[in-house]
């Protein structure tokens, strides 16, 4: 029994790392720009495809493709912010919701149009590799994804804590008017924050390729999980997104095993609603 529980915890943690990475991007965007990016999942989908094509056409290993994907998606984030998000930054919530919802619709169907609905997978030498220790099985690709995700999150947190741009982002999220008076370029900072958020989710996509498969609506699956994580962790806490991601990963592993693989999704939606109703600020969120 213990072995099973430990195995579930490990499986959950490993996947949770990626959930955390996706969610941190979402939290950053919401914390700084105060909009919920309903199209977040579609950027994940796009990066999965990017990683797929890099592998198919150039033989680049998905983990290696991170070197390309991360800067590429940072730039994509900058552009999207400038063209689509900036006009509605001060608009009423209704407009903000529907712009990103519309964007999500466009991206999903563009993928469908260009790449059809077929599932795409990447099979590498280590795709099915498993490490075995004391009766526990650890999937190698998941382990690598976990380590990389944590690494990226750590770098991000250090960046936000130590660099001037990072501090500017945090300042903007905490007290916008004062940030203006510090000489911080508000609109430039919005752009960078969004870019980083998209870069994070882009990285997550590349890391998912060896584990999962890509198809045009794959984003929808993961983004709903990300929303649950963000709400659980606290919508303006990055650490909350990290811990929330790990928790949800574990919850998913356990409910998938003890209840049913199908009901696990229902479980975290119930968690989602319960948190929204009883503790909207989440575990680490600040009033």
């Amino acid at each position, binding site marked *: 029994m213990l072995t099973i529980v430990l195995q579930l915890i490990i499986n959950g943690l490993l996947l949770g790392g990626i959930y955390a990475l996706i969610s941190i991007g979402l939290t950053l965007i919401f914390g700084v720009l105060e909009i919920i990016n309903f199209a977040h999942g579609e950027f994940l989908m796009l990066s999965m495809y990017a990683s797929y094509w890099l592998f198919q056409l150039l033989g680049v290993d998905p983990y290696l493709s991170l070197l390309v994907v991360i800067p590429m998606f940072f730039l994509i984030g900058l552009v999207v912010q400038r063209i689509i998000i900036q006009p*509605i930054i001060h608009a009423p919530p209704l407009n903000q919701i529907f712009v990103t919802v519309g*964007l999500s*619709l466009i991206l*999903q169907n563009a993928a469908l149009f260009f790449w*059809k609905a077929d599932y795409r997978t990447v099979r590498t030498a280590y795709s099915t590799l498993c490490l075995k220790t004391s009766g526990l099985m650890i999937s190698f690709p998941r382990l690598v994804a976990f380590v990389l995700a944590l690494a990226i999150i750590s770098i991000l947190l250090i960046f936000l804590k130590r660099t001037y741009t990072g501090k500017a982002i945090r300042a903007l999220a905490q007290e916008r008017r004062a940030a203006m008076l510090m000489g911080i370029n508000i609109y430039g900072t919005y752009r960078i924050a969004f870019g980083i958020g998209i870069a994070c989710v882009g990285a997550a996509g590349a890391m998912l390729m060896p584990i999962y498969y890509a198809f*045009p609506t794959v984003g*929808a699956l993961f983004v709903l999980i990300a929303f649950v994580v963000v709400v659980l962790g606290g919508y303006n806490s990055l650490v909350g997104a990290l811990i929330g991601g790990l928790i949800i990963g574990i919850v998913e592993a356990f409910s998938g095993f003890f209840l049913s693989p199908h009901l696990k999704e229902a479980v975290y939606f119930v968690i989602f609603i319960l948190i*929204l109703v009883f503790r909207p600020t989440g575990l680490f969120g600040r009033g």
Partner: protein
Amino acid sequence: MKMSFISRKTASNLFRPKFYLPLALLLFLLVLPILPRNPFYEDLIIMIFFWGALAAAWNLVGGFAGQISLGHTAFFGIGAYTSTLLYLKFALSPWLGMLAGAGLAVLVAMGIGSPCFRLKSHFFALATIAFAEVLRHVASYWRGLTQGGVGLLIPFKPRIENFMFHSKIPYAYIALGLMLLIILVSYIIRNSRFGFYLISLREDQDAAESLGVKTSRCKLIALIISVLFTAIAGTFYAQYLLFIDPDTVFSLPFSVELPLLAIIGGLGTVIGPIIGAFILTPLDVLLRGWLGAISAGLNFIVYGTVLVVAVIYFPRGIAGWLRTWYEPFLRRLPGAKLSLAIEKTVSSPLLTSETSDPEDSDPEDEEIKSPLFEAQSLNKHFGGLAAVKDVSFQIRKGEILGLIGPNGAGKTTVFNLITGFLSPDSGKIEFKGEAMTGVKPPHKVCIKHIGRTFQLVRPFNNMTVLENVMVGAFSRAKRTKEAREEATKVLDFIGLLEHSHSLASSLTIADRKKLELGRALATRPELLLLDEVVAGLNPRETEAIIGIIKAISNQGITLFIIEHVMKAIMTLSHRIIVLHHGEKIGEGTPAEISRDRRVIDAYLGEEYLA
């Protein structure tokens, strides 16, 4: 022989464009289902009516009340599955099943509505998505009940009681009937007290509360009506297509398309959803057929782009745009009469408040038996900061009591404690002998005849001046006609009558302040709290508003006024209390206060008089 069965007025009204245009439209709609000879067009018409009905139902809660639900598919699915399962398992006629489905949907809405409405807009939207997804999963995986992903097939046995027909025409009329019913309900609501309340809470929830609007209850009722119709549409869908499965009836894209129709057509208007349906449904079918045939997904790309562009550049939708030239257009049509000038009523005493006594004008003569209002030892902390410390005062009936003090002294906090926006940590509040400590939410305070204005004016921007005041009047009048009359009187009293039909957002700041006053006046307060009414006005405007305030006082209304413009408050007030750092540091007549050392210290600095 004279026409005796129709009144003269009705007959003449029939010839006005305001009546015959919609009538013509109605006739067109009634005839539409029997026009086509082609099953494709028959189907298209049914779809237009179907989507129109759904969009209009969503519009009630999303447009009128401003609560963005992205989970309406949940109720659609509940309707579809309930009637279908009851029919398949118990041979219950789908007509009855439809009612059962609607009933279930209403129960569910009552359960999740209240907790979810507390959430802010983005989070409310998320919660509704999550809720719909939960239902989809339940439907998918509870195979015992729903056959899961395989879906449910309804065998085709066309008889009326089975809600199935050979020809498409009955379906078309049923769909049309549903759509017209919802439109009728929307129209009735729009012109009723409930409709005014919905729009006011959408525009500014706090201001609405202060005018007696029970915001939580109104939101819930709007949701209930909306889901009722949505569930009925779900049954219709099941009976029309004879096949349902979780992915279709509990579908997220469905939840997104609904609002799109309302937005493009014109959010919060009665006719917007129909316009949206007439434009987007054929467009969708066309795109699907044309672009979708080229490649899957292309049509949605266009759809998504339309959504993004519409929301950024045309947030008011087509109806919003139409509104600007609809009225002039109407006037050019045959039969149009010039609109009647607003009849000016004689300026008579405005209030007929039960306890007002016109003879009793000087409050200082009155023996202080019991004051109209009393606050005892009020305390309020925010974190470590004491905003209000042990503040006690009385307000006598008919007087004007001024409240002054430097910035941050706690004045608006005191107002908020009295009007139900905050609860005191300790202390007592009594009004007309009744305990009012910590009465919440604000609408309850308004019902008890305490009214207020806000420091930064909060007009309902998308309503006209008259409609703004009517929201206040509705706290005492149940019927629209009464409310309109009352509001007109108030507007006359404060001098805004000529702006009655202008949008509140188009007023100057001075007029907006008057509007705020008028709106609160319409709630027939006995005690009126004014928060910095004079601030930001030039000398002439200041004089005008002071005149209005004096007139209000002459009506017998007791006033409690926060003001910074010293000249104004010194001339207006019978008595003044002074707050500083949350404490009361002075009380007395204006003359006494202006000589009070402590007061001068607080404003000018300790050593000023040294």
